[in-house]
């Protein structure tokens, strides 16, 4: 089975990830997921693709820390985090988060917390490629 936390170039399958998550416990009553996608339009500019750079070893370590903290904080049965790097076309999937718990509320809260924290703590940078040129994205504080 694939690792619960990964950085990879290739696309991922939700069906596969959910199956891996569910395999950890039959007591899982609720699974919340978040998928971040490459939009074809950002702040008034057309975006043809997005290119990601990552400090890979630290990014994976930080994602594992977030997963561990979410498991404890929300009492999850399992969680998975996958982030793609390299060049991603408009409409493609970028990031996947799944949180599974006995009941729905902690799964949904953990999923929201994980994507917010990932954006704050994980050393990954995106560059939007537009017909007018490339631009690294400056996150809103």
């Amino acid at each position, binding site marked *: 089975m694939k690792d619960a936390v990964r950085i990879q170039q290739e696309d991922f399958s939700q069906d596969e990830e959910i199956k891996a998550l569910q395999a950890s416990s039959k007591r899982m009553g609720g699974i919340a997921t978040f998928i971040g996608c490459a939009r074809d339009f950002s702040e008034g500019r057309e975006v043809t693709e997005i290119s990601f750079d990552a400090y890979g070893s630290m990014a994976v370590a930080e994602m594992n820390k977030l997963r561990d903290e979410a498991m404890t904080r929300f009492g999850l049965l399992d969680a998975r985090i996958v982030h793609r790097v390299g060049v991603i076309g408009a409409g493609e999937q970028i990031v996947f988060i799944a949180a599974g718990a006995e009941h729905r509320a902690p799964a949904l809260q953990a999923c929201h917390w994980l994507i917010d924290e990932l954006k704050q703590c*994980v050393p990954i940078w995106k560059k939007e490629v537009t017909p007018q040129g490339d631009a690294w994205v400056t996150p809103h504080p």
Partner: protein
Amino acid sequence: MIKVLFFGPVAERVGASEVQVKFHAGMILQDVRAHLQALHPEAFEIVCFAAVNGAHIHDMSLPLADYSEVVFMSRFSGG
């Protein structure tokens, strides 16, 4: 030798994803930062975070060991 890595917008402004800085006894993180900032002021305008050997470091007075891996990073924009 200290290995210094750059990623994303910082790497673009430095014009390299890795540089070497000569180690000396008693070296602290701030020494490396000051040295590189003088060479690449535009890149360091957007540097917000530093990491040493894969861990976030806030204290620039951290003593460095030889062969440490140091990274100066701008705000993250993953996800």
